[in-house]
């Protein structure tokens, strides 16, 4: 399951989507909205995506992970739109026969997602808002 969603992300559904009788290990990464960044209070986040390209890049990440590790199943779901503190921004789940590969593949996915996938996060503070990493 690779998707972007305006709706609340259901972790259980994503985990269920990667279970496999051939897999003994599932690693799940969940990115949540923190109440602060660099010591400043965050009120909420607003995610924007270039959706067709973001989906294409997410599928490329999944493909690369499957080439590098013995992945049984892999799901990535990313939020679009406003998310309040504590809500889920991204969930990645990877099942593999043994545990080491599940950690490595999952970490590869989130690290690469943060570098390549055209999604942008606006941090909304009490006194203003800013696109993250938007200035040189």
């Amino acid at each position, binding site marked *: 399951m690779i998707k972007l969603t305006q709706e609340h992300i259901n972790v259980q559904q994503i985990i269920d989507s990667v279970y496999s009788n051939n897999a003994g290990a599932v690693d799940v990464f969940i990115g949540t909205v923190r109440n602060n960044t660099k010591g400043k209070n965050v009120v909420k986040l607003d995610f924007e995506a270039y959706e067709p*390209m973001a989906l294409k890049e997410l599928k490329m990440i999944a493909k690369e992970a499957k080439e590098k590790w013995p992945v049984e199943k892999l799901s990535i779901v990313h939020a679009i739109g406003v998310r309040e503190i504590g809500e889920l921004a991204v969930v990645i789940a990877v099942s593999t026969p043994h545990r080491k590969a599940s950690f490595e593949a999952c970490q590869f996915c989130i690290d690469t997602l943060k570098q390549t996938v*055209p999604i942008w996060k606006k941090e909304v503070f009490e006194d203003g808002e800013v696109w993250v990493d938007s*200035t040189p």
Partner: protein
Amino acid sequence: MNVSVLFFGITKEKTGFSNYSFNLDPQSDLRVLEEELFRKFPKLKSEITFKFAVNNEYILGNQVLNNGDEVALIPPVSGG
């Protein structure tokens, strides 16, 4: 020829547009489009950084554009 340019995040904020259509001479490349963008939206040159994507693919160097191409301005991504 026409190319459609999409703006996201800070590029949308700085230009005030989510998309804008440019009419370019045939055989124009990304550098030509970039000049037009900087002329139309000077803040893109002075205040931010971005990469180009053409038809959903990052283009690191230059590339000749075709009529109907979709060009996106990709500021530093921050998903996750």
